[in-house]
């Protein structure tokens, strides 16, 4: 039995039935990692010793259920006590946090086992993991292609069978876009749904912690564990967390689903348009009411994001001064040089580019023209969504305009690269929950469909996604190393 292929629920069933132990799972995953990691390049750090220890301890107790005894991975910007947390940056190459992120702490308390820390674009800034200071990760469907980003290591690892699920962060699409490229499930919950304590901040009005998993059912289980108010994160919402799994009944009868015409333009390829329209017909067959709508300010979300995200990033990254943690230039003769040399050496090109852009947008005389303007446009974008949600339960669109691109194809073309996020960014700008689920294969590469819900209505999102999954087989497709499908 190849345990590495199984979902969280399948593993849980086998643990509860006494067929396997947690150590068996850890063993299977590390064997799988030994085979594919050379190609996938998903992990920055493997936690072999602690993973084995935790598995043995849980097996000795002999009680299972939930995620107890089941391994997970973390995007390497979640602080893990005593375990290196790099943000895929030279700046934090040797940073070992003395505290644990709330989300990973909640998983650990339920008996989840951290297997390793996963690659990303430096400080989550990028769409391909090619901006990682260490190495690019690769797409298990075709090793010459990117897994997406910024949570590309997480998506590659889940798709390659190295880990059953992972936690990541999503500021403009960083969970949904890689999930789409790698043919797995990626959920960005509502802004404020999950605590961000201990997660390196990129753009604080947009960042949200979420999940990459192999199916919707696993996603619902994990969201229930990590969601909720946290005293350590003032931006976490004090709103009841429902039992998401209870909503998964496979029914969408009478559900009102809108598809925004603007999301089927914006450079979306013909085959992706066709695939998502076909998926919408599937929802119709299942009894949902599907109608076209307009989100008229959609095209302004990306230019507004270009201001909001870098502006907030430039302030968040001001904390890296070479004094308290992180890279320090050892030669600088005075404090001012120490700051600017340490930062110049510690940050990579994309991070510097965004710090420069954000600093410019916030600098004296430009605030009104850029940041304030962008925040006003942001209200228009949020209002578009609110208008549609008066009549509809759900919005459906493609997740990305294209399937996974080749490594190196877009690295020098900043604007084109940012366009990958055109369909996911508006969701962050409005603070809404969004999920990407696989809905087709295009020339052997996965196509993702994005479902967008009302604020704090992840239940409807998961319910619809689950119904689609139950009536299709796309989530069961898995790549064999080097491309293709093996099941």
């Amino acid at each position, binding site marked *: 039995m190849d345990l590495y292929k199984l979902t969280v629920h399948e593993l849980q069933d086998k643990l509860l039935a006494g067929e396997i132990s947690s150590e068996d799972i850890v063993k299977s995953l590390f064997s799988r990692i030994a085979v594919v990691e050379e190609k996938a390049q998903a992990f920055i750090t493997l936690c072999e010793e602690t993973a084995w220890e935790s598995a043995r301890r849980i097996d000795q107790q002999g009680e299972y259920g939930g995620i107890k005894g089941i391994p997970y991975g973390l995007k390497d910007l979640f602080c893990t006590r005593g375990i290196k947390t790099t943000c895929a940056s030279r700046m934090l190459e040797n*940073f070992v946090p003395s505290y644990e992120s709330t989300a990973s702490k909640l998983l650990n308390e339920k008996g989840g086992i951290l297997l390793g820390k996963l690659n990303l674009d430096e400080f989550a800034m990028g769409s391909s993991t090619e901006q990682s200071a260490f190495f690019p990760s690769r797409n298990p469907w075709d090793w010459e292609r990117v897994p997406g980003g910024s949570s590309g290591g997480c998506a590659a690892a889940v798709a390659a069978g190295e880990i059953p699920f992972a936690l990541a962060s999503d500021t403009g699409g960083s969970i949904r876009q890689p999930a789409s490229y790698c043919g797995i499930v990626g959920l960005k919950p509502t802004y404020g749904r999950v605590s961000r304590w201990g997660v390196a901040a990129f753009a604080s*009005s947009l960042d949200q912690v979420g999940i990459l998993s192999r199916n919707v059912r696993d996603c619902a289980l994990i969201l229930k564990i990590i969601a909720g108010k946290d005293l350590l994160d003032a931006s976490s919402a004090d709103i009841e967390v429902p039992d998401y799994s209870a909503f998964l009944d496979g029914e969408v009868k009478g559900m009102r689903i809108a598809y925004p015409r603007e999301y089927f333009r914006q450079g979306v390829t013909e085959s992706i348009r066709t695939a998502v329209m076909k998926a919408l017909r599937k929802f119709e067959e299942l009894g949902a009411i599907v109608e076209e709508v307009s989100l008229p300010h959609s095209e*302004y979300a990306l230019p507004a994001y270009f201001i909001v995200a870098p502006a907030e990033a430039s302030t968040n990254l*001001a904390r890296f001064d070479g*004094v*308290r943690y992180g890279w320090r230039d050892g030669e600088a003769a005075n404090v001012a040089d120490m700051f600017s040399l340490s930062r110049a050496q510690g940050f990579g090109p994309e991070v*510097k580019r965004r710090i420069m852009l954000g600093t410019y947008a916030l600098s004296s005389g430009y605030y009104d023209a850029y940041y304030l303007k962008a925040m006003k446009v942001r*209200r228009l974008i949020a209002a578009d969504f609110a208008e549609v949600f008066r009549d509809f339960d759900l919005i459906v669109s493609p997740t990305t305009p294209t399937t996974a691109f080749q490594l190196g194809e877009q690295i020098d073309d900043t604007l084109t690269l940012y366009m990958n996020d055109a369909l996911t960014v508006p969701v962050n700008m409005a603070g809404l929950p969004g999920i990407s689920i696989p809905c087709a294969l295009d020339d052997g590469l996965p196509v993702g469909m994005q479902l967008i819900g009302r604020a704090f209505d992840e239940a409807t999102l998961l319910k619809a996604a689950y119904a689609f999954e139950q009536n299709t087989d796309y989530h069961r497709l898995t790549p064999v190393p080097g491309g293709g499908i093996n099941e």
Partner: protein
Amino acid sequence: MALSPEEVNHVAMLARLALSEDEKTAFAEQLSLILDYVERLNELDTGEVEPLIHILPVFNVLRPDEALPGSSQEEILSNAPLVEDGQYKVPRII
């Protein structure tokens, strides 16, 4: 909208980034491209629109001021590049 070399120098100073000449040239070009793209926001009349500062309704969050266990001084200092006598060490300021 093209950024002048003086503007790039000024922004790099504000951002405390010691950029190389190559980086300055590249960023001047790339930032100009991005700012041109952002210009399209001005197609929208936002005169009457309130900026969206908080996506969620925000309230003051109050709680009793209780001391809870946190990281020790030793743990916190363990990540500092240079430490002396339990303090951060930096180049001479005065």
